[in-house]
């Protein structure tokens, strides 16, 4: 009787285990590789004499095809954040309300149906959202009296619809994570469901809800196709106009859309090409920080 496994078997098993280990750390490798490659392609410009990082961040003049070119991304950065923030203002009340309804107020059958609908909504590709923004909502915006159909508000509405499923599903998880004993204790005191939600669940799940909003925000800041198609991609500053604070009906550029739109027209390795990679580094850093913060909010700084 053979008790010892053959050498070949032991070897192949070792090989498989090593492949698994290597695959395990591949995610780390990819995250580093993404940062390094994107930084590497843009580093030439970053360290060159006729470029300053403060100009990139503060100057409003983005004219990369002009000679001499000017790379001031202030309007683009403002555009990115104003679209994202307006989208969040629209979507957060709906998403949190929807999450509370799905988690606490509806029956099990309706709950299942709504969860499936939300999951399918989350699957709609961003280019289809962009198409809807370009061909449908923008037409209604014009009919309602806006000068340009594609605008900051139009993009924000599309992004709001788009980020809603992710915020709802993470918020719902957060509400589910509140122990049932909390609910029972509250109900036992004779409060109504809404009082329980308002006084017990929302405070109990506040970290998870905050993380859901942050992750939605990260999604919206990084979204490319929908904003490219729905905001019109014109170089405007939404803050410098006659409108009291923020001109919602102006067409703006975002970082993602600028990269996607202009990358095709650049010379590989040229200054314009490099500055787009620098915008990529900035975008990567922003979403990295947002995601990290969301993670820490959920799991706490030190997980014990």
């Amino acid at each position, binding site marked *: 009787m053979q008790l010892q496994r053959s050498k070949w078997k032991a070897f192949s098993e070792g090989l498989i285990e090593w492949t698994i280990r290597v695959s395990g750390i591949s995610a780390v490798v990819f995250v580093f590789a993404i940062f390094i490659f994107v930084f590497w392609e843009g580093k030439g410009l970053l360290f060159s004499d006729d470029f300053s990082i403060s100009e990139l961040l503060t100057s409003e003049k983005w004219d990369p095809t002009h000679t001499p070119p000017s790379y001031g991304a202030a309007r683009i950065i403002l555009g990115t954040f104003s679209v994202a923030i307006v989208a969040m203002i629209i979507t957060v009340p709906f998403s949190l309300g929807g999450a509370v309804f799905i988690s606490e107020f*509806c029956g099990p059958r309706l709950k299942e149906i709504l969860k499936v609908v939300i999951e399918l909504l989350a699957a709609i590709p*961003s280019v289809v959202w962009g198409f809807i923004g370009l061909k449908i909502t923008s037409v209604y915006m014009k009919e309602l009296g806006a000068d340009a159909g594609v605008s900051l508000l139009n993009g924000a509405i599309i992004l709001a619809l788009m980020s809603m499923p992710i915020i709802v599903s993470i918020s719902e998880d957060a509400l589910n994570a509140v122990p049932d004993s909390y609910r029972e204790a509250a109900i036992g005191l004779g409060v109504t469901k809404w009082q329980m939600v308002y006084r017990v669940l929302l405070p109990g799940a506040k970290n998870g809800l905050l993380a859901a909003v942050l992750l939605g925000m990260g999604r919206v800041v*990084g979204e490319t196709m929908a904003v490219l198609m729905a905001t019109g991609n014109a170089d405007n500053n939404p803050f410098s106009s006659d409108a009291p604070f923020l001109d919602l009906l102006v067409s703006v550029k975002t970082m993602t859309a600028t990269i996607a739109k202009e990358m095709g027209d650049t010379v590989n390795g040229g200054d314009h090409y490099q500055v787009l990679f620098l915008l990529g580094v900035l975008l990567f850093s922003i979403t990295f920080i947002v995601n990290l913060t969301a993670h820490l909010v959920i799991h706490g700084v030190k997980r014990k």
Partner: protein
Amino acid sequence: MNDSQRFTKTTFTQKKESREKWVKVLLFMVTLMMALPVILLVSFLVHKALPVLSLNFITDIPRDLMSAGGIWPAVLGTIYLVVLSLLVAAPVGVMAGIYLNEYAKDNWLTRIINLAVINLAGVPSIVHALFGLGAFVMFAGLGESVIAASLTLAVMTMPVVITSTREALSAVPMSFREASWNMGVSRWQTIRGVVLPNSISGILTGVILEVSRAAGETAPIMITGAAASITFRQGETVYYLLGEKFMALSYHLYYTSMGWKVPDKLPNPETGEMVPMTQAALEYAQAIPYGTAVVLLGVVLLFNSVSIAFRYYLRTHRKW
């Protein structure tokens, strides 16, 4: 005498209960307001796409400067992308999931890997595109091609596979593994013989989700090799070489709605003279982007529904 006559509700209780009712209605409306616009928008898309929607639209090549015919080269390009990215993302993603659930100890390395997976999922698609351009197109010398775009998509969609593999594996009870170990079976043999067979369907739902994700993404492919249009002759078999540029559904939708305009006049096939388009041809041409959007949406939602259905099946047919 019944209860309601014996006890009258205080104003406080009445207020409390009426507020409860209003909140319930309000929250229901809010939920409805989320789902309803999307359903209306999508049905509007389908309505606008009706002139072109037929099987022929999917299987025919574009003709007459893309104002007639179908979108087969784009469909085929998407199939290429999905299959090639799956070939990379599925094995690496599944093995990474196995590592995280079966091998990794609770230490700093595991925490870093977890963080990396979360961040990889959160990196914007256009940054993945830049990475693909820098790493695969330029550094690896693949050029703007199907293979470069597929690899970019593979890196991008890998977190989907990793996360769902982990979930599927962690659903297998620990006692299954312990029973196997107690028989003197090694770790890998336990995984192969006990853990994987019990979780394979869960892993598959993740793989199906990866397919749907890869089919819908546009930004990562638009600067790594997608082409606006590639001319194919009538009757010619449509195929791409791995090093060639390609058409894809998502990029086709972007191009036909942003860069492309319906031509006013078309050359007459016999005389070569430019003649204005007929009303029917014009309507068909204008519906092409809508048709593309509906096909893309159909593909993505189909895969997602399969994945969801699969999950429901699993939940009702659990072995433990």
